[in-house]
């Protein structure tokens, strides 16, 4: 697979804040690449540089997607983090306008608008004003506007925000379909579970720098199978206090335990069996969330302590 986009050592400073500090990565054609990071890590600024909203202070952004006569900007579909819709306009007109500013002729996309509205169950909202729509429906309209002009690269900044679980699944399936159609998707999110389900490749940005990148498997493998996934009945609070456990995240009746160096999982199992009823016991790679906290959290905690 070939790269469609290469970001090379881009930097962007706002006043004294280094929003993006030497970020490099490539996006491979036909994949979903997840751009991960906390709020304010530099994800949105990076995306704005790719979409040409900001010029990078230094570094370059190269398009390798070949050419079909359309300018680069028209081959990108961009869904901004916050809704970017004219609230006073009617849904149908707005979608035509969004396609028009991407260089499409209104006559050519009219049929597509109908198709998309149907797919998103919005056909009856065609003549409604955007401001009359629910937040979730506005998000769906925005997503249609991102896809109408048949972009090669689809850049989505937090596409799941404001969606209920049903619509979230709808969007997730849509993204999978698009990938199968050969589209490339760059997906920015701070929801690790989402990224884990969707992304082929990951990029973790922290404080304006890429701190981790690779395929999901690569990333996980690099952390080894040193994590215990437990499900149990009873009070699992004690798990955190075990000497073999380096860090624990316990939610209700499930726990994800990072093991200390040289720790034997069997010891933990034995200890746990004495206290709670075990329903699941698995030694596996850490979840993306754990990796994220491992990579970012400790450093952040450290920083905050130094600051204190």
């Amino acid at each position, binding site marked *: 697979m070939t790269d469609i986009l290469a970001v090379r050592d881009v930097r962007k400073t706002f006043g004294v804040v280094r929003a993006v500090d030497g970020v490099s990565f490539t996006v491979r054609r036909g994949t979903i690449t997840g751009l991960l990071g906390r709020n304010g890590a530099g994800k949105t600024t990076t995306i*704005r540089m790719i*979409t*040409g*909203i*900001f010029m990078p202070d230094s570094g370059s952004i190269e398009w390798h997607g070949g050419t079909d006569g359309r300018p680069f*900007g*028209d081959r*990108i579909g*961009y869904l*901004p*983090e*916050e*809704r*970017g*819709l*004219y*609230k*006073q*306009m009617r849904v149908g007109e707005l979608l035509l*306008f*969004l396609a*028009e*500013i*991407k*260089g499409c002729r209104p006559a050519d996309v009219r049929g597509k608008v109908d198709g998309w509205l149907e797919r998103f169950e919005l056909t009856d909202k065609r003549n409604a004003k955007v401001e009359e729509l629910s937040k979730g429906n506005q998000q769906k309209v925005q997503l249609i*506007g991102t896809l109408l002009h048949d972009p090669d690269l689809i850049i989505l900044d937090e596409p799941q925000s404001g969606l209920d679980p049903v619509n979230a699944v709808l969007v997730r399936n849509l993204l999978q379909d698009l990938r199968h159609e050969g589209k490339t998707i760059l997906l920015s999110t701070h929801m690790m579970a989402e990224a884990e389900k969707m992304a082929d490749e990951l990029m973790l940005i922290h404080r304006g720098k890429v701190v981790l990148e690779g395929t999901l498997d690569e990333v996980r493998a690099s952390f080894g199978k040193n994590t215990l996934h437990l499900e149990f009945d009873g009070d699992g609070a004690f798990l955190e206090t075990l000497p073999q456990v380096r860090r624990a995240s316990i939610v209700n009746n499930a726990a994800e335990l990072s093991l200390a160096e040289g720790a034997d999982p069997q010891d933990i199992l034995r200890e746990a069996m004495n206290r709670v009823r075990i329903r699941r016991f698995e030694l596996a790679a850490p979840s993306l969330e754990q990796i994220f906290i491992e990579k970012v959290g400790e450093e952040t905690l450290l920083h905050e302590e130094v600051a204190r």
Partner: protein
Amino acid sequence: MKKMLAVLKREYLQTVRRKMFMIMTLLMPLLMAGAIFIPTLMIERGMGLKRIAVIDGSGQLRDAFFEPETKNEEADIELGAKRRDLPQQIATEYVPAANAKLDDTAKPYLERLKLDKGANKVDGVFLIPTDALTSPKAQLRYFSRSATDFVTQGRLSSRVNRAVQQYRLAKRGITANEADELLKDLDVESVQLSKTGEQKKGGAANFLVGFVLTALLIIPSFVYGLEIMRGIIQEKNDRVVEVLVSSMSPSELLVGKILGVAAVGLTQITVWFVMSTALGTYAGAMAAFGGMNVMQLLRPSTFIYFFIFFLLAYLTYVCVYAIGGAVCNSDREAQQLIAPITMLMMLPWFLMAGILTNPDSGLSVAFSLSPVFGPLTMYVRTLVAEPPMWHIAVSIAVSILTIAAFFWVTAKIFRVGILSYGKRPTIPELWRWLKVA
């Protein structure tokens, strides 16, 4: 270009469909018509009735306040004598006081002046001293509740003075008829002479029409300038701007918006001209009734210049408003920033009376050739005078250069400002934006 047209089209359609456009389009001509017709109506119908008590110490000036046909009536006190030539009707209550002390006679009337309402209320008390006919130093006095009732005062005093003059002439053996003839004022007919020798009636009507046309020229610029500013701020707040700027250059976006709203303005004035043409016949008839021919002022050149200077004024102001929109984050913030600038840009409007009466004065010429103020002032000059062609050419050229410069600055500030969501930039920051962008 295609994208710019898409923005233009959206901007145009969205604005034209708004209620505000309908209201502006229908209401403005009504307001303007009101501005023409209400003064005419006031002259026609008067501003209401004023009751004035005239205390005549000389006892001989009754005729000055009543028409000859009311002379034979018995009563000395006469209410409701109407004067069609006065801006308001004056009902005069005439009190001869030749044999009494003037102040004593006046006292009850001055008391009645203090009343707030009722049949006894008077609006003014006019005192004519005993020696009014004999002493050139005699002083007339007018008491009223309002300090600004100089119109009534002027009317009353001119009546008395005319009578006093007639009395003095009569003393020298000149009869009343002869005196009327001697004292007759001559009418002035005001004529505007063009360079080609064409003669036209001028005067007050031209002044009024000048005001109205200038208002029509300038008001849309400010109204739609504000529209653009608010539109940009809303796009920023709704984050639409991110989608727009990732699809086209900020200059394309800016040009599309400005031309879209310009098209709205042109649509509006076209509607107005159609309406005014329909109304023109009626307006012409009305004005002709008052002895003035408004239509002679509305030459073809009036309309051509109107379109030229409308566009120049419009584009100048709109650029300024677009900058306001780009650097501010809320309507309120923008209003505060733009209010003093608007006042400055409207300077020619505040000086309009001076420019209309002295269209070729140094100040008028300077304003008409300067940037920003040029279009409005020059239009007024073409309307009421005949400025040299080179003045018009220079004014247009200066305006075009100004617009080009403003546009350049606006595009640069727009580029940076449209995506800055933080606090409003300071002047040094703006300067940096200009250099960096």
